[in-house]
């Protein structure tokens, strides 16, 4: 069996919203190539609604698919709604990811927040959903999965 399902492969091979918005209202990058994966999301906001979102990702197939689906989920949502998107939802929308790849969805979730964080900074707004979010968190993103409920503790291999 292939390691990813058809939906993941579709978003990987035909990523939606790939690119970068010029003069974006918010631009966030999360992760770093040294950690193995890095995502950048740019957003356009009108009346507190995300009207466009684009991504660029350095990472594996599920990282690219996760960022693709993340942008699809964001567009048309209010900022508060977008902040409510969880990595679990990203995984569900993709029809599931292998346990060892759950952290790629966590990264996408954080990239969404990083873009909105930047927008909030630029526009001087505050959002409850950003509380406690650190856009410069320096953890190794290959390490985060075990802290996440989504992996159900089954990814003990990730140390």
């Amino acid at each position, binding site marked *: 069996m292939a390691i990813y399902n058809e939906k993941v492969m579709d978003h*990987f091979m035909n*990523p939606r919203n790939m690119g970068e918005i010029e003069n974006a209202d918010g631009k966030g990058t999360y992760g770093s190539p040294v950690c*193995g994966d890095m995502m950048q999301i740019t957003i356009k906001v009108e009346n507190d609604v995300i009207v466009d979102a684009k991504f660029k990702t350095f990472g594996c197939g599920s990282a690219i698919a996760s960022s693709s689906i993340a942008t699809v989920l964001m567009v048309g949502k209010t900022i508060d709604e977008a902040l409510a998107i969880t990595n679990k939802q990203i995984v569900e929308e993709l029809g599931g990811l292998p346990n*060892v790849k759950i952290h790629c969805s966590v990264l996408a979730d954080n990239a969404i927040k990083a873009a909105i964080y930047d927008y909030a900074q630029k526009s001087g707004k505050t959002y409850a959903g950003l509380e406690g979010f650190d856009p410069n968190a320096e953890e190794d993103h290959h390490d985060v999965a075990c802290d996440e409920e989504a992996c159900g503790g089954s990814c003990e291999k990730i140390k």
Partner: protein
Amino acid sequence: MRQVYLDYSATTPVKKEVLDVMLPYFSEKYGNPSSLYTLGQESKDAITKARGQVASLINADPAEVFFTAGGTESDNWALFGAVDALKKKGNHIITTKIEHHAILHSCEFLEKHGCDVTYLDIDCEGRVNVEDLEAAITDKTILISVMFLNNEIGTVQPIKEIGEIAKKHGILFHTDGVQALGNIPIDLKSLNVDLLSMSSHKIYGPKGVGALYVKKGVKISNYIHGGAQEIKRRAGTENLPGIVGFGKAAELAKENFDSHVKHCSDLRNYFVDKVLNNIPNTYLNATMDGRHPGNANITFEFVEGEAMLLSLDMQGISVSTGSACSSASLVPSHVLTALGIPVEKIHGTLRFTFGDFTTKEDVDYTLEALTNIVNKLRQISPVSSEKGW
């Protein structure tokens, strides 16, 4: 869709000539080699023949070749067998940071059971320094285990020099010859090697069978205990079809050695040239000097290996990667790490290994697919040569 297999260092297809000689040993000539009646003795003869074929490939005596269940068992046997046999003399092992996990994880286990292990560094070409090795020797050193040829970067280690050092100090020398077998000349009469691991499935033989060469006079303890097979050195009813196949594969490897090496290295050199010239920001890792004839290990900057691997797979092309993202444990390749390659570049590293069934058309097809895939993934990537990492 075209299928292009470029992972010959992972495993090889069983050659038809090999399969043909194996087949009768499943349901016609199935006798147990330990049985005294004719059916059994025919099986025994078949194993004797295979032992000669394998011995001939490495220029050893047949009596020095013991069949096992593969390279991993041979590596385990060499280490555990030597440590046990020499426990009165010492507890120190010298090995390298780039060994196969069959060696590294065995060493980690031995460390938990009282052994001290020195893991030697490699230089930027991928080789251990023999002076470092000699300097690491203590009066407790009982075993040196340095692989002949590395499976990821294809570099050959200075086995002759290491053998001389080992001999001078009276220390056993084991080498993992799994990737070297059939790919570079191995002449055990001219090397001071005491133990050499081999595996059948890397030389167009079946999986799950291999051998350990134990030089005449070298005493190591048994690892698999039971019946009296393999002159009481390795118990268990023999994998008869497997051993017969391994023997035939070894015979073919010897016969076709020169054409095999030329075929693989011609295609490999052509491929490496084209990739490095046609795709910007790509690097070949480790030296070309004395390298495995079919190995190309290349870093593609700004993209990740698993994404490349998957995209190539969608076009029928099979390769492997050192990227952490593709390993179950999410750690980047220990070999590329030891080579000093920064993590972000290890992530973008692919290994292509060419073999006897690879054609020029396969290579051209791969070059085109690869160029497009790298371009596409670089468009998706937020890092680039302009923006930097």
